[in-house]
């Protein structure tokens, strides 16, 4: 459980290795953030609707997951009438750089599309850059 006033980043990632890498990277660069992990896209909407837990300031979303993949999660969030879901910042974090994947995510309502590198130093730098950007913008989606 997180305390009041804490900034929560919700990480939706099915790979245990990637969850561990994200934890290591963000714990170092953004120790003030509280990380919550979901291994399955199906759980995202319920977590965001949960009024007893702090609303995440940002969702870090993997694209290729079994079950509800990133596209489905993203589309469902943006289509939901609840502002807790449709207005949360979503950063797609994926190893794909193909134009079709990028276009699809943009159409679905992603706020950022960030390449997930193999090299851990770059992985950390990229994550830090993306989170820094939204942190600088107070985790607010431009209107």
């Amino acid at each position, binding site marked *: 459980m997180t305390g009041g006033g804490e900034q929560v980043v919700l990480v939706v990632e099915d790979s245990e290795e990637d969850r561990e890498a994200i934890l290591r990277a963000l714990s*170092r*660069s953004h*120790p*003030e953030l509280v990380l919550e992990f979901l291994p399955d896209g199906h759980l995202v909407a319920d977590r965001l609707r949960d009024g007893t837990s702090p609303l995440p300031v940002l969702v870090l979303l993997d694209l290729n997951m079994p079950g509800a993949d990133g596209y489905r999660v993203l589309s469902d969030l943006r289509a939901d009438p609840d502002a807790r879901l449709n207005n949360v910042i979503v950063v797609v974090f994926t190893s794909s*750089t*193909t*134009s079709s994947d*990028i276009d699809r995510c*943009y159409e679905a309502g*992603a*706020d*950022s*599309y*960030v*390449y997930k*590198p*193999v*090299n851990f*130093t*770059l992985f*950390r*730098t*990229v994550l830090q*850059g*993306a989170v*820094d*950007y939204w942190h600088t*913008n107070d985790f607010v989606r*431009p209107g």
Partner: protein
Amino acid sequence: MTEGDAPSWPGLLHALWRSAFAAGSTKVFAKELYLGLLALPHVRGVLGARVGPDGDVRVVRWADHDQGVLSGPPGLAGDVAPWVAHGPSLPARDAGQAKITQLGAGELATFAPRLADRVRAAGGTVVVAASFRAAQGDRGLLLVCLAREPEDPTVAHALEQIADVVIAADDRIADQALLDNRLAADAVLAEVSLRLARSLDVEETLRAVVRMAVPGLADGAAVHIRRRDGALEQIAAAHVDVRRERLLNDHLRDGRWAGVPVRDGDEVDPLPSLLPADVGLDLMTSAVLRAHGRTLGVLTFFHRAGTRRVPTREFVRDIAARAALAIDNATLYSRRRAEVEELQLHLLPSVLPVIEGVEVATGYNVAGHLLDVGGDFYGVVRQPGDRFTALIGDVCGRGAAAAALTGLARHTVETILEEGGRAEDAVRLLNTKMLRNGVGKFLTMAAVTFEAPTSAGLPMRALTAGHPPPIVVRRDGRVEEASCRGQLVGVLDHPALTPSDDVLAPGDSVVLFTDGLVEARDATGTFFGDADLEPTLAALHDRPLPEVAAALVEGDGRYAVDDDAAVMVIRYRGRRVLDTVLPAAEAPQAALAAVRSLGRPVPDRLVGVPEHGEVTVTVDGDATWARIEISGGARTWWEVL
């Protein structure tokens, strides 16, 4: 030196040093630092600030006993600004790496009244401040508010010690950041190189390059390619924020930026981007993509003002050089590939002769990954006495020498056949010619000679010279390999050649092919020829002939045909009793009437035939078999009765 249950100052300092050397950012131990100073005697508040080389207050924190530690509380940066401006003129004494200043709240109020108000509100009457250097030309400021004038140098000494901790941690963090940036740049180069080496799709790869650089190495990136007319075309742009990426794309496309550099100079320090403020990218670093003296495009990285993450000159040049080389290689490859395909097609007959009662279809696959012309060939030759011969061959090796031998072989054999010679005579003469001329290569060949049809069908003689024997596909789907055997051409003085004879009934086919087809593999590595060629031929036996040839040369969609592969399929269709063009609605009855004329039973109607426009209707067969084909548009409907 301690108040109440607070830990001792030496203990706090020790903990601070440990935290400072494990932290990835000074903010990690900020709380520890501020609370430690607050625990000193008579301390009521602590202010910390980081000031950039231009005097801009970048980070500011406040701590007091009521509120704890606050990062960037509203208005504090503005309140500190007068101190930053007047600080250097205040009397100070050196204390290690810090300069220590002490003054009363009243004096503070004369040049920084709002800061003085904060000090008083916290219960302070005096401030002791330490100013010290920080990494990358910044200055650090720590200001302690005391309830009364200090009786001893405890606080000043503590600030001096804290300055040492902050400076050491800041230097280490800056060094680590520099190293991380370098490692990240190396990682981008490595991943970009892999990507460039794997793909010949230049534009898609360049899109990936800009995507991989943002936000790890730059806040934005774009790539332009120079077209043949010299104009630069924008290929891709990337920004960490989708909305700003769209803006960036629009601004670049509409010319609302500084544009590409006129020349590829040595200077790659960031320049003003001149992009509109809404995209938030004030600076840019460009590199011209150049290979073999030709300008191929421009790669540009964009940065926010004040960013610490500007790629090094070496990185920008390196990534540009790699991208340029990849573009150059891909362009040369595609040009060479087009030449190979054109030359390969010149080695094949452009038109096959039309022969009564027989249908011929061919397919050819040019090896997808090779830049040398291959040696597969085929042809159909009319011969005196209503005979004709279909032949297929494969010259060993690739390139100009193979192409020359392909031309020689095909024209030698075809000339002999046209003069009425037998296929085995043609092969033997070619063999002699190759040996006499010391060609130094060999080839394999297969041929099928068809005599004039008889009441028994179409007589054929199959020949192979080291080549996969022709395969006969009966009209009922049975598949039989011709029993001919023979040795390859160009090696032995007298190659053994043993032809085989057969007769095709109407609807039977003969398939000739080169080894590129049988050596196609599926995902498990199984060869097409080992496991599946005969069942595939059986399954395809009654389909329209062009479909059969196309399916084979594509590995029936299951086998990857990576090498050159040629296929020729010859179907004996028997007597053609109908060949006409009709409105689609009239075609079924006309076809059924023709089948009926052969003495074959017919159904009441044909299902699924084309229903619109004009169609071509053909009916072939005899009293034992009939085949209807109705073609309209791009579709061919067929039925065997």
